[in-house]
């Protein structure tokens, strides 16, 4: 019994003895983390500022811009096409299943198109672009950072923002809304295929419902979302790569690039989802 008592008391005694030290350590740790987060946010804010300023600096690198447009935009078409088609078809089937219960199959076109234009189109496009192009941008810039290529640019008095970051921003700002539009159209066609061609909903009522329910406000909301998501994903992915050596716990060398790339995709995806809710709440 006394042995058990001793065992039970020991951690308590140790805890009591270490209490002031542990408390200090906890408070210190919280303060340290808060300072790190503030510094990181400030750093990323300055990065965004210089990236946007870089868009107006001369000479504009048109070739680099076109290259990025091809990479982020044209290169993402296949993944956007298949994601949109499958999402639209699932929406068509699910929508039919739900609406059939109330005898409201005629509303299928309206349900599919509104869901795609206002929500799924911008969100899924941004998530796909973040996974495909965002990760590549982060890794590319991260490798340029650790191999001193960015330092070399700065030493040649060449602004790295104008040289290779701002063209990525502009390319994303143009291609993400366009990819979203492609997503919406392909998704609606997918919904049409599943609802009309497979489940036998009337084609005329599908398109008529869509025409009646979708307003310019809904389209505008989708466009605003896609532009905001484009800024978010290109900002986070390029910024994380640029500051690869300053990110806590990322380690060094190739490992740091791989960790930071994962972090960039996760962070940009979460930001897209959070901002989706905020924008919907404010603009709907």
């Amino acid at each position, binding site marked *: 019994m006394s042995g058990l008592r001793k065992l039970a008391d020991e951690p308590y005694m140790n805890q009591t003895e270490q209490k002031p030290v542990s408390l200090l350590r906890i408070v210190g740790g919280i303060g340290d983390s808060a300072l790190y987060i503030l510094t990181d946010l400030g750093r990323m804010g300055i990065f965004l500022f210089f990236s946007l300023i870089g868009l107006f600096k001369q000479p504009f690198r048109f070739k680099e811009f076109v290259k990025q447009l091809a990479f982020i935009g044209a290169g993402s078409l296949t993944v956007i096409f298949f994601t949109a088609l499958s999402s639209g078809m699932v929406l068509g089937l699910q929508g039919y299943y739900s609406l059939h219960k109330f005898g409201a199959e005629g509303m299928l076109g309206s349900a599919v198109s509104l869901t795609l234009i206002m929500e799924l189109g911008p969100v899924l496009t941004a998530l796909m672009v973040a996974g495909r192009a965002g990760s590549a941008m982060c890794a590319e810039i991260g490798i340029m950072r650790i191999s001193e290529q960015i*330092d070399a640019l700065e030493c*040649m008095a060449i602004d790295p923002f104008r040289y290779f970051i701002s063209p990525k921003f502009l390319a994303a700002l143009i291609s993400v809304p366009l990819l979203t539009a492609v997503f919406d159209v392909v998704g609606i066609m997918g919904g049409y295929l599943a609802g009309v061609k497979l489940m036998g909903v009337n084609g005329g009522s599908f398109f008529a419902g869509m025409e009646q329910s979708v307003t310019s406000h809904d389209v505008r909301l989708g466009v605003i979302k896609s532009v905001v998501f484009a800024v978010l994903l290109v900002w986070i992915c390029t910024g994380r790569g640029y500051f690869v050596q300053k990110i806590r716990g990322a380690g060094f060398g190739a490992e740091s690039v791989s960790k930071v790339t994962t972090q960039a995709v996760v962070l940009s995806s979460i930001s897209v989802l959070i901002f989706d809710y905020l924008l919907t709440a404010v603009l709907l």
Partner: protein
Amino acid sequence: MSDETTVSGESAIQFVEVCKSFGERSKRHLVLDRVSFSAPRGKTTVIAGGSGQGKSVILKLILGLLRPDSGEVLIGGNNISSMGYKALQAQRTLFGVLFQGSALFDSLTVFENIALPLRERTKLTAEEIRSRVAATLEQLELTGHEDKFPAQLSGGMKKRVGLARALQLEPEIVLFDEPTTGLDPVMTREIYELFVQTQKRLGYTAVIVSHDIPQIFTLADQIILLNKGELDVFTDASQIPFSTKPNIREFARLVMGQQTA
């Protein structure tokens, strides 16, 4: 042997009581502790020391890539550590840098790498740039390799391309970060010969950070040794064993062995 006595003529670079530390707040590691020295204009200053002693940090402070915690870094009399972005960019036009890993842009060919500073920083026509790059390629025996990418080059060739890029705008100050690391003795000698030739031709101030002791001392007009937070400046390698600073004497004994005995 004091810092100031070794400065001959006008200083291109001057460090005044510079401190620099790294790491998070609770675990700061002091790399440079009130470091002062000058690099004379048109001469070669070699900075040597063990790993992690702050040699590359000195180069980054000179370039304004890092800012000192305290003290001043003066380039041609201007304090680079308090400069704004634009002034810093203007100051950097004075520099050419050969990085340790060459820092060539891996998505650009050899030609494009060497042409980059000319394209971005001058108003030369495409034809003028082509002929200037071709001349440089010939001088550095790189003709025929212009369409290769950095990944297709040997270590020595990368260094030569890096040097060619660094010298394209005929800078006043050229910084060399471990120029011979990873090269065989033949290639090392080749890089040193190239250095002597280009410095003779262009007359730039050179700062070389190197581990290649004592060979690198043959190029030096001034030697700076760093060890365990201590720094000493010499005009001749033969003075090193008689340093007044114990950590420097210890370092010299370890790396120069018999010569200092």
